[in-house]
């Protein structure tokens, strides 16, 4: 088969799997698991084949136009360069791991068939975004991901948190998608085509009239999808979905799409200095803010959610300094270790029966209950904190190195000010990342108190994928940083000495300070008992997690934080902790700015409809109603009365006709 055929099959197979899963889910439940896992694995194999054939060389381009569509043609186009080939492999790996993990995680879930089909559809949409060479086709995948995330985040729709979170995820990403669509149209109008290659050609010749406006419009959509400030608020709440969904959304698909899109169209952004500075400021605010917020979260998955936002900030930061190789490098390593972190967190939540770090810190010996999760999560947290030689170190250093390069004026690709912004924010975020990673590890695995409950061994499907993902988390960076430039732009990804030493240094400082704070506060833990565990510890992991999420707010007074004085984050953040726990009140600001006016407008409309419009309608109906009541009185039920009236009418008519005929 040709490379093009293979590449078409990659997104098509999960799509067919999803369709078959949705159709057969009820009638043939035995086929659901193979239909979920096999297409994902086959796509992975095909994506690897495509990558091998493409080999980082000349991009594979193919296009066909189904039908003429008016002014700007829309074509079914493929554009597979090194970035697309490698990101597709990442998507395939994570999607396969998530599907295999889900068979164990949701094994007793009655809605598993539709869940697995939606995950397949999600994967297919992301692969479409990755391979697409046409912006409208890309937009199709982009929006399919949006609706799939709505369904998957709302998987436990019995709980109000999940319902609210799914609607929030959908609305906030759509808020970015509207300017995104306008930006796409503006871009295509100026380039005369939706093809990415044509657009990039136009940009290279300086044919773009308003690059700043277009770049900012596109940036809004990418910020919504990739959860960048100020459109990041949907992501921490999306933790109400099942853990495998979080892993899929956060590691490889949804949030990666925004970064990947900017990486694809980076020349458009580079054409505008203002857009690059905006990108840099956005990335810096996101990195630092999410790091502080992650340090204050109590729900283990919310810590990871904020860490995702922060790592995406690194990727947009790399794009802001014009280095898409570093951005996609970080996207790849982050995809591996973040998927691992989430899947391991799912195992831990199942074993502990709670998602609260405060409760876990009061369980002794959790690490012995789930040794697989403990070891793999340690690897992933080290990668997250960018400790050499784990993969996160190499990708993060390539980002910081690129920023330093721009800041010191070695390259003209981006304004120097964005280089400085990214460098300073990146180092600060490295400190915070190490701090919250250490806090997570200490609280989850070094608890003191009651013995952790024994729920038996975790299913094999759930532990094996952890080790599969641990391999790239451990080694991808070290092995890949030499060979990746051949696949990417050819930019050097070797860590620079200065930034490596400084970055690792601040990470170590962050870790050590957190450890010290933990030693200081941990004595308090015994004095303040806390903890609520799931009511059905023997059921499958998905049920335990749903109960843990639902019981967090009633047990601890909020979904985000717990009143735990033994939390080292509380000591480190001091008075800032209260604000960081609720995401710096951004949700409250949005509620005041957007939600309340909309609700007030809705009640006004309701009043106008119920009280004003309906009054007129009722008034108009009153007179006919009265007339009808009067006429109905003639209806006596006696047939003879009716016939008499008929006869009288006939006689009157006959007499009248007679009079008219005789001319009287």
């Amino acid at each position: 088969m040709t490379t093009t055929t293979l590449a078409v099959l990659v997104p098509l197979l999960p799509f067919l799997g999803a369709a078959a899963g949705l159709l057969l889910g009820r009638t043939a439940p035995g086929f659901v698991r193979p239909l979920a896992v096999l297409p994902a694995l086959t796509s992975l194999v095909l994506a690897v084949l495509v990558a091998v054939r493409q080999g980082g060389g000349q991009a594979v381009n193919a296009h066909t136009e189904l039908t003429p569509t008016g002014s700007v043609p829309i074509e079914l186009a493929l554009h597979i360069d090194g970035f697309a080939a490698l990101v597709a492999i990442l998507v395939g790996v994570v999607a396969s791991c998530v599907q295999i993990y889900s068979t164990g995680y949701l094994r007793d879930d009655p809605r598993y068939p539709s869940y697995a089909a939606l995950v397949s559809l999600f994967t297919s949409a992301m692969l479409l975004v990755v391979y697409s060479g046409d912006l409208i086709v890309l937009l199709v995948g982009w929006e399919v991901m949006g609706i799939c995330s709505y369904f998957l985040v709302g998987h436990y729709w019995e709980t109000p948190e999940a319902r609210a979170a799914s609607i929030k995820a959908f609305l906030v990403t759509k808020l970015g998608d509207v300017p995104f669509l306008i930006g796409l149209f503006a871009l295509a109008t100026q380039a005369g085509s939706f093809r990415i290659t044509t657009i990039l050609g136009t940009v290279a010749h300086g044919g773009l009239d308003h690059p700043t406006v277009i770049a900012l419009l596109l940036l809004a959509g990418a910020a919504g999808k990739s959860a960048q400030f100020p459109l990041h608020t949907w992501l921490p709440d999306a933790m109400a979905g099942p853990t495998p969904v979080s892993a899929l959304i956060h590691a490889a698909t949804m949030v990666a799409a925004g970064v990947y899109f900017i990486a694809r169209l980076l020349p458009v952004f580079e054409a505008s200095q203002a857009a690059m500075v905006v990108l840099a400021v956005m990335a810096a605010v996101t990195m630092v803010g999410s790091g502080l917020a992650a340090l204050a979260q109590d729900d283990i998955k919310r810590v990871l959610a904020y860490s995702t936002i922060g790592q995406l900030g690194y990727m947009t930061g790399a794009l802001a300094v014009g280095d898409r190789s570093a951005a996609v490098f970080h996207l790849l390593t982050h995809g591996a270790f973040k998927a691992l972190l989430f899947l391991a967190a799912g195992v831990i939540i199942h074993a502990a029966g709670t998602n609260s770090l405060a409760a876990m810190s009061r369980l002794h010996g959790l690490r012995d209950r789930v040794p697989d999760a403990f070891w793999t999560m340690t690897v992933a947290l080290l990668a997250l904190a960018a400790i050499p030689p784990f993969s996160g170190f190499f990708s993060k250093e390539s980002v910081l190195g690129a920023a330093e390069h721009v800041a010191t004026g070695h390259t003209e690709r981006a304004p120097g000010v964005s280089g400085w912004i990214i460098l300073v924010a990146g180092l600060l975020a490295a400190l915070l990342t190490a701090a919250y990673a250490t806090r997570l590890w200490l609280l989850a695995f070094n608890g003191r108190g009651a013995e952790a409950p024994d729920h038996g061994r975790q299913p094999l499907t759930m532990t094996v994928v952890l080790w599969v993902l641990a391999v790239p988390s451990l080694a991808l960076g070290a092995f890949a940083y030499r060979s990746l430039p051949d696949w990417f732009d050819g930019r050097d990804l070797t860590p620079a000495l200065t930034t490596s030493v400084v970055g690792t240094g601040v990470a170590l400082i962050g870790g050590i300070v957190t450890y010290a704070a933990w030693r200081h506060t941990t004595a308090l833990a015994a004095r303040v008992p806390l903890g609520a565990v799931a009511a059905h510890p023997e059921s499958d992991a998905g049920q335990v997690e749903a109960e843990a999420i639902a019981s967090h707010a009633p047990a601890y007074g909020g979904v985000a934080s717990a009143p735990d004085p033994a939390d080292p984050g509380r000591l480190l953040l001091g008075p800032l902790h209260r604000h960081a726990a609720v995401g710096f009140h951004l949700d409250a600001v949005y509620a005041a700015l957007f939600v309340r006016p909309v609700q007030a407008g809705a009640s006004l409309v309701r009043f106008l409809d119920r009280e004003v419009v309906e009054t007129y309608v009722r008034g108009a109906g009153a007179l006919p109603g009265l007339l009808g009541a009067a006429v109905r009185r003639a209806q006596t039920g006696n047939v003879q009365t009716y016939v008499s009236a008929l006869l009288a009418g006939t006689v009157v008519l006959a007499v009248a006709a007679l009079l008219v005929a005789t001319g009287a």
Partner: protein
Amino acid sequence: MHLAYPAVLAALLFCTGLYGVLARRNAILVLMSVELMLNAVNLNLVAFDVWLSKAARDTLHSGQALTLFTIAIAAAEIGIGLAIVLAVHRNRGTSDIDKLRDTAEGHETVGPDSDALTAGPADGAGKAEATA
């Protein structure tokens, strides 16, 4: 025979029938009156047919043919009518038209026959059947 005789006879028959329809209380007698009115029309049809064929304007005797149609249809109609009256009588215990006022406006509460209708235990079902 002059046309006036059958015409006057038909008019008398029709008026008798009309009086019966308007004034009789028994449903069977009302049906019989309807038959009288029909037969008045039949008489008219035959008489005018003869009168017109004398004038040689109509040689097909369509009036007589139409009369046969009317008689056949009237036979069918009276069969159905009597069946309905029988069914109503079995259900209600009466075939008095004055007491069959189910279609009156607001008869559920003020109908004069509501007492008679609820007299027997089987009346509820029968009423439902009759009104269905």
